[in-house]
């Protein structure tokens, strides 16, 4: 570090943000060069929570490796599991019962809402407003309770398995989700009253951290980050997987490309997810929740890729199989990794205060970046 201080220019100083810092929400380390309060350069230093899940997966069977992926993007464990299950099912050509499909989408969308809730509270906290966090957790708690009842876990659920879901939904599931929909709809307006309309908040968010459409594509940003810049990239819409093709929902797009646009995209996405849940909750078909599969899964030789939409963007699972019971090589294309690479471009010339605001709108989950 001392060398870098020596090489920094006159009037510039280098500051380490993280790995222990309240705004990085995890063990992210950013080396920022400051001129006064203005950020001249930013370099992320990753790996503080790198567990080499890709290497671990190489010695785990196709039933086991899914459990490691819950620990990647821990706010969207269901969707990570879903991506892996889909890849295995695609490779083995397993037909999934309709009931399992519907349950999968329901829990995925609940996860998406829970993830966006947490992001909403955490981002407001980054901006110095501490109260929204508790309001966000009020709703998120209900979702985690529902998950606990059905999956047995609150965070790393490990609910989806190749062939369907691990267990049938709890008898209370439908009623509790319906109650949640009513509760959520009456309270989403509170969010706007508390945060969205606040003039300080808008001043902090508008025209800050602008990412143009071209840059958003070039940096490989996905999810709400790219959709805030007007890039249509919702995998559920453009490459529909599972039964998303049959559902009615809108892809939320904003064109401004600033922090406020990304904020709006996520808040509106929560409403879209609620509408998906509403379409499905009354129409859960009867039947099996899991297809009959062999005890030991063997993928045919070849390469399989599955893209899914997590709350943070596009997650890709790339499996190279040699025909055995374990993958030869597995690669997780995590959304946060690419979104983070755009941070330097977005933050240059802004103040330190904006760093946390922009980082907040990227919705970084560090284990997802490091894997």
């Amino acid at each position, binding site marked *: 570090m001392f060398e870098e201080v020596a090489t920094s220019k006159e009037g510039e100083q280098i500051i380490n943000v993280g790995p222990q810092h309240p705004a990085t929400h995890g063990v992210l380390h950013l080396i920022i060069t400051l001129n006064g309060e203005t950020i001249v350069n930013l*370099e992320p*230093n*990753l*790996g503080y929570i*790198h567990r*080499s899940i*890709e*290497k671990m997966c190489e*010695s*785990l069977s196709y039933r086991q490796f899914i459990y490691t992926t819950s620990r990647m993007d821990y706010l969207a464990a269901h969707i990570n599991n879903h991506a892996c299950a889909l890849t295995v099912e*695609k*490779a083995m050509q397993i037909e999934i019962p309709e009931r399992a499909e519907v349950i999968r989408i329901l829990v995925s969308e609940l996860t998406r809402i829970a993830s966006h809730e947490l992001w909403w509270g955490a981002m407001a906290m980054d901006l110095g407003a501490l109260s929204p966090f508790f309001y966000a957790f009020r709703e998120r708690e209900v979702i985690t309770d529902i998950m606990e009842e059905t999956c047995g876990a609150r965070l790393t659920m490990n609910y989806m398995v190749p062939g369907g879901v691990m267990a049938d939904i709890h008898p209370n599931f439908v009623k509790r989700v319906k109650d949640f929909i009513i509760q959520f709809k009456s309270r989403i307006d509170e969010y706007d009253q508390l945060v969205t309309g606040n003039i300080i908040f808008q001043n902090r968010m508008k025209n800050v951290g602008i990412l143009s459409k071209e*840059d958003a*594509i*070039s*940096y*490989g*940003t*996905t999810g709400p980050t790219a959709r805030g810049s007007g*890039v*249509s*990239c919702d995998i559920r819409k*453009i*490459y529909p997987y599972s039964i998303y093709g049959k559902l009615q929902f809108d892809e939320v797009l904003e064109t401004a490309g600033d922090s406020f646009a990304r904020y709006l995209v996520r808040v509106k996405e929560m409403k879209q997810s609620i509408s998906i849940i509403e379409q499905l909750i009354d129409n859960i078909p009867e039947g099996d929740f899991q297809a009959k599969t062999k005890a030991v899964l063997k993928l045919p030789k*070849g*390469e*399989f*890729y599955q*893209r899914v939409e997590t709350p943070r963007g*596009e997650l*890709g699972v*790339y499996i*190279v199989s040699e025909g055995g019971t374990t993958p*030869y*090589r597995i*690669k997780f*294309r995590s959304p946060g*990794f*690419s979104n*983070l*690479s*755009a941070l330097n*471009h977005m933050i240059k010339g802004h103040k330190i205060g904006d760093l946390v605001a922009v980082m907040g709108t990227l919705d970084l989950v560090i284990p997802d970046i*490091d894997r």
Partner: protein
Amino acid sequence: MGNEELILKLKEVFPEMDCVQGNDWPELSFGSDRLIDVITYLKQTPELAFDYLFCETCVDWKTHFNMVYHLDSTRYRHNVVLKVKTDREKPEIASLAHVYRTAEQHEREIFDLFGIVFLGHPNLKRIMLTEEWVGYPLRKDYEDPINIIKL
């Protein structure tokens, strides 16, 4: 452009390369010396417009490395997979950091975990592991008895 159409087009432009239909998308295989030509063509041809590199990774085949590039076009929504063979003894390949900026971080990760040197990369250094780490963990011959427990 559909997959068949894309394969025909690629076969026409790059007749010496191997182009087959993979499980999802067309797969184009070639040697590392042609990478920049192919990428430039794929990105700049208006009817292809592959402007989005959504996955870049590497597979260690013990005799050689395969760099795998997944490309998407945000305009036409067609995809292609590039498989580029590189030498295992002296793994070097051109960097795409100036074509797709997302490649910069992806290539740092691949350099870190596979040890592939990207020529022309603006900031090629380890990203996950510490600078003094010896070896490249995702290679098949990597042994680490302390940190990795074999099952």
